[in-house]
């Protein structure tokens, strides 16, 4: 059982079937060709990738928690928002931006572990309904705490990557967008390295897949799950900090991002980290392109379209692009 977990060395065998991978390659080629042909296509694709990277970061956090504890954490966005406010407070205390960034990640880890221990662990084995309600209660509580401490008016943080804009053949790339994209991809790679090549990662995967067996070989399952929540909170903090420049700092800043992140996680497969990233980027680009080329799809329909995608995925391939089929044994 543990040996089974070790065998999966590459992302490809995690669950991405051949048709899905071929489809993704075809999509990438389509995007490249389109960008070369039309400037506006390229601009929309770049903007879509940047937005999608933010969806992907939060979706990654959702997937991490779902893989570890089978909980859909409705409070993930609010946790991300709260940690962003903590970074804001640090900058108010004259801590430089990047130092505040890394300090916030550390604080976020501890907050994630605490939330797991205090709120989730006692109810982990209850019904789905109970868990949903608890995370919803957490959502509202965190929203209230942030509003209580900092107020709900708009606040602004310094821009993380500076304001330079690069131009290449009629298309403009802002340093901000490129930075967000890089940070998200870096998080995924780091996470993958953690899971594939470290003993901690192995133990975490074992605790998620086969908790009873893992406990028998000495894995401290509860701690592994807590660390999973901690890491998810860190990813959420990254997502929040990357979102702030475009959404400004307000308690509702992550609420719409969370919704797109759900769609992204389902599209990629609720159990697949790589899937969530692909899903996020895909949704970001898809929304922009469909908004550009289909007149009916005005800005009000962005959310409904993302959710139509979610519903279609749930109806036809509920395990998502990279998920594995689950058979219910009776």
């Amino acid at each position, binding site marked *: 059982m543990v040996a089974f977990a070790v065998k999966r060395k590459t992302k490809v065998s995690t669950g991405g079937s051949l048709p899905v991978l071929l489809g993704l390659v075809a999509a990438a080629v389509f995007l490249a060709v389109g960008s070369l042909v039309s400037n506006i296509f390229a601009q*929309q694709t770049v*903007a879509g990738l940047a937005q999608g990277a933010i969806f992907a970061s939060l979706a990654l956090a959702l997937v991490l928690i779902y893989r570890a504890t089978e909980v859909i954490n409705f409070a993930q966005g609010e946790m991300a928002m709260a940690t962003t406010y903590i970074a804001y407070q640090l900058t108010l205390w004259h801590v430089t931006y990047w130092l505040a960034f890394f300090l916030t990640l550390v604080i976020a880890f501890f907050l994630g572990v605490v939330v797991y221990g205090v709120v989730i662990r006692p109810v982990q084995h209850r019904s789905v309904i109970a868990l949903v309600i608890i995370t919803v209660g957490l959502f509202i509580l965190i929203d209230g705490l942030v509003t209580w401490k900092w107020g709900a008016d708009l606040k602004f943080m310094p821009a993380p990557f500076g304001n*330079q804009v690069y131009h290449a053949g009629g298309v403009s790339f802002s340093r901000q967008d490129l930075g967000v994209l890089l940070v998200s991809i870096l998080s995924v790679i780091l996470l993958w390295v953690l899971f594939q090549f470290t003993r901690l990662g192995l133990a975490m995967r074992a605790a998620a897949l086969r908790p009873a067996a893992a406990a028998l070989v000495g894995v401290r399952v509860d701690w592994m799950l807590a660390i999973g929540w901690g890491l998810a909170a860190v990813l959420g903090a990254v997502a929040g900090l990357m979102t702030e420049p475009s959404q400004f700092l307000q308690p509702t800043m992550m609420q719409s991002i969370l919704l797109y992140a759900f769609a992204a996680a389902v599209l990629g497969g609720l159990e697949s980290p790589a899937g969530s990233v692909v899903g996020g980027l895909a949704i970001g680009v898809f929304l922009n392109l469909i908004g550009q080329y289909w007149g009916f799809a005005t800005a009000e329909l962005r959310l409904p379209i993302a959710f139509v995608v979610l519903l279609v995925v749930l109806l036809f391939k509920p395990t998502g692009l990279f998920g594995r089929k689950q058979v219910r044994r009776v």
Partner: protein
Amino acid sequence: MGKQAKISAVLVGIAAVATVAVSAASAAPQATPGVTAKTIHVGGTFPLTGVASAYKTIPAAESAYFAYVNAHGGVNGRKIDFTVVDDAYNPAETVPAVQKLVEQDKVFALFGSLGTATSLATWGYTNQHKVPQVFLASGDAYWGFCAHKACAGSPKPYTIGWQPDYASEGRMYGKYIAANIPNAKIGILFQNDAFGKNYITGMQQGLGAKKSEIVDTEGFAATDTTVTQQVLALKAKGANVYFIAATPAQAIAALVTATKIGWAPTTFLANVSNIRPFLLVAASNGANLDGLISSSYLPNWNQQNLPGMKLVKSIVGTYAPDLSSDLAQGDSNIVYGMAVAWTFVYALEHAGKNPTRASLETALHSMNTSKNPFVYPGLVIKTSRTDNFPIEQLIMTKWSGGASGGMLGVGKLQNTGR
């Protein structure tokens, strides 16, 4: 099935009795609601939180001015008691908030409430209950037209605005473009509600024969903070003139996004958003402010030594020191708040020794003064039975001085009336 039903009933009974007792104790009918021998109680709804919270300094400034007036004898011996309620710029929250102010707090009048959609959601209710809805912080042309004409079903004589209406502002920009920018291709980014649409109507009127120069209009919802898709569309249509009809948060996004996608058109900004601290945030995120065109009815950035501006500074220093840093950055919302509050005191003073809602309404419709210290020098505030627009003058402004500059006046005050 016995005991729990009993306990439920007892709990509900206690709750009901408590509510009855509390409300009976607080109910006290008054001759003129909100006016006692010593106080005049008014209330207003403002976006203290949420996307439009850039305007939260307005009620703070108004409260500071009222505190100043109260400290100097009040209005005919009565102090003004101003209740500020947060509605987060959300009409769904404004409606219950106004109901509470009118039915529970029993205010004399609603003063200064901010927002176009929020006011349209409540003006039916206030006019039905004959509650004066005074000096809305909104420039919808309706507030001027509908005192005696039926709008949305009935005339609204109890509602009056203050600032120059948005359609007139749009008209002024349209005339300017028609006269000064040949071969203009205009792209309008607008908040997709009555607020934003006012500007489009006005600009079309101002352009006249050149109306077709508007190549694209892109709307966004009041709660959106990203407008990337819309700005990309405007650039794609080839616009070289950019009109931003938005509140400060989206105005920042609109300006920054334009720079990020490498678009540098001639930009017009609705004057509800030419608030210096917020434009500076846009600049620090990469927007280029020099050459940004807007308008104003308040003193400019380089008119800090006017007696009115000095008065603002001293009132803030004494009664609202929290606003000092905003004021130092040039937050014109504070000046706006004091200008409106001054006008309200002026109207109250002309409403007789013992004001009633009727006498306030008469005073509001016979204003004529150029003595408001907080508005642009020479601006006249005037109303009559047939003229429900208190201010119908604007001066064009342009930003200069980069990240340490401000909006400076161009030319003279223009009449924007019809």
